[in-house]
């Protein structure tokens, strides 16, 4: 049923890039929505909200479609692909096939790090997509986010699955 819902969602959504899997379109929407539940430190409170993709863009046009014309708290949202760690990102997505370690080295950087691999939280990441059957869910390590000076809304935290720390 939930898959059906997603399929229905996909069917209703504008579909410019048919080749992008449903999973990534959902993740693109999630990424964008995470930004709504996070407060950055004052230094990052102005200028466009930057969504960085490590190494490459796995979402195709789906992310741009999601972001186009959208504003969060009056701020423009822009997405760009980066090839090395940078502190200019509000949000950093590390795809499955990219090694997360170099991007997670600076634990103090005020960047919400989002991954999609099993060891992402253990290696210092803050948010990690997991799959529950056909549904996309996420784990959050609130401590890591706090350490970086980020405040994640309890509403978002409530939806997070328990990170598997062992």
């Amino acid at each position: 049923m939930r898959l059906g819902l997603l399929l229905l969602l996909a069917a209703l959504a504008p579909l410019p890039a048919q080749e992008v899997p449903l999973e990534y379109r959902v993740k693109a929407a999630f990424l964008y929505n995470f930004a709504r539940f996070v407060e950055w430190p004052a230094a990052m409170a102005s200028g466009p909200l930057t969504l960085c993709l490590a190494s490459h863009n796995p979402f195709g046009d789906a992310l741009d479609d999601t972001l186009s014309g959208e504003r969060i708290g009056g701020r423009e949202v822009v997405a760009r692909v980066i090839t090395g760690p940078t502190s200019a990102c509000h949000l950093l997505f590390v795809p499955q096939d990219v090694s997360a370690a170099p991007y997670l080295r600076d634990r103090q950087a005020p960047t919400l790090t989002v991954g999609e691999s099993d060891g992402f939280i253990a290696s210092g990441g803050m948010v990690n997509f997991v799959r529950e059957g056909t549904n996309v869910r996420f784990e959050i390590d609130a401590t890591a986010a706090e350490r970086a000076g980020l405040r994640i809304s309890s509403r978002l935290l409530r939806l997070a699955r328990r990170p598997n720390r062992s």
Partner: protein
Amino acid sequence: MRPFQDLPIRRKLLLMTLVVSTTAVLMAEVGFVGYDVVRTRAEIVRDMAAQARIIAENSAAPLTFRDEGAAGETLAVLELRPQVSMACLFTVENHLMATYHRQAGMQCPAAPPSASRFGWDVFEAVVPVTLDGQRRGSLYIQRDLGDLYERLQVALLSAVALMIIAGAASLLMAARIGRLVSSPLLKLADTARAISSTRDYSLRATVGSADEIGEVVTSFNHMLDRIAERERERIAALERERDANRVKDEFLATLSHELRTPLNAVLGWARLLRARPVQPELRARALDTIERNALAQARLIEDLLDVSRIVTGKLRLHVRPVDLAAVVDAAVDVVRPAAAAKQLRLDVEIPHRPAMTSGDSDRLQQIIWNIVSNAVRFTPAGGTVHVRLERRDGYVLTVRDSGPGIDATFLPHLFEPFRQADPSPTREHGGLGLGLAIAKQLTELHGGTISVHSAGPGTGSTFQVVLPSNIPVTEPAARPVEAQDDTNSVHAPAARLDGLRLLVVDDELDARLLLETALTDLGADVQMASTAAEALAAIERCTPDVVVSDIGMPGEDGYSLIRKLRQRPSATGGAVPAIALSAYASDRDRSAAIDAGYQAHVPKPFDAAELAAVVAQLGGRSKS
């Protein structure tokens, strides 16, 4: 027709208080419940809006991240609100994302309603779910209104209970007030009914209170006083009337008896005289008896006429200077024979003579005669009657007898006409019972008083007449020539009428014959006429010295005759002296005759000597 108006007051009060109290309670309840419903509705709207907002807020994240589980948990919070029967969370595309329902089998609507609304049994709240001002979906919450209806029911039940209590209380009050109002009225009605059925006007209603009802009862009692008074008056008047009727009946019986008694003697002796030859001695006694009885009857009629005149106020006195002593003597002389016959001592004591005053001597004599003859009549044989006339302020006449006296109960009625102490047929004394009544009236006409004293039966009685010494003269001393009423003159020798030519006019043969015989016996030359026309013709032929005419005649009466005669010249008899001889004997008749042109009036039955005296006087043969 008017069912309320005809109800008893108690019922009216009951009904009124019941209606008022229950209406008041009902209105209060309606107002209260209405206000409660409105307030509760507003509260529900407010409460549900707040609740929905909280849920919507908490649903924003689950909606955003399509987390049905989390959304369901959010909705499950509503478990704490027992009135919420169902909640549904819709995505922005109106797909159902999560539901909550209290009872199984409830179905969410296919799409959320556009706005919150109140239904009959549910309130449906619809709020948008937004995130950062962006619409993410909508939340639909259905609240059951059962509790509201329960509350209404309780309110309704309490209203009914209140109405019953208020009704019962007001019924009690009304019954009490009703008793206060109606029981005195009912008692009043009972009294009125008792009075109308028993006619006992001495009954009175009891005044219970000083309020309006008390006033009604008091005025009812006043009315009863008046009615009782009226009733007493009515009964008294009825008794007086009955009494008067009885007196009249008795009088009529007495009158009949008194009129028949002399007739018996007259007729009996007259038949005896005709039937057989009688000795001269017996004949003289018979004639004497006849005359006496006829005179007695004439006196009765005279008395009756007097009473009639007194009653109609037509009795007039002919007041002249008069010697009371002489009048007393004359009156006593009349009764002396009767007193002598009963062997009574009849004393007259008059210390001062003459006792001059003014008055109608005939009437004064009538007064005295009545009292003295009464005394003689009622005093048994061998007794005494004492008459005394003395001068004090005026004149006081005292008549004292040794008779049986007068019963104290009859004393007050003594001077009333038609009254007799013993009206029974077995009474000892005759008479009409008019004498004293006439005496009283005549005395009062003279300005005097009459009184009687009696110490009771067996002690005799004393009559006293007080007359003023000077009675105002109401009529000139000179009067037309009159016949003398005095019965004393009956036995006086009649005047001779030798040579006088008389014309007698009467329609009755008996009367003509009697007159002819009586006047011829006295020496007159008597001519007869039976009608007025005949008389006029006879006078024209040969004018007589005196005309004696009847008044009541068929066709042309005595008045007409004299008027025609007086219109003639004296040569044809216009100035001939005329005497009216009539059974119309009242003062008025006398005046009418004189006015018509007669010189004198002699009443029938006439006394021959009396008539002769008048004829002689008019015919120029008078002694004086």
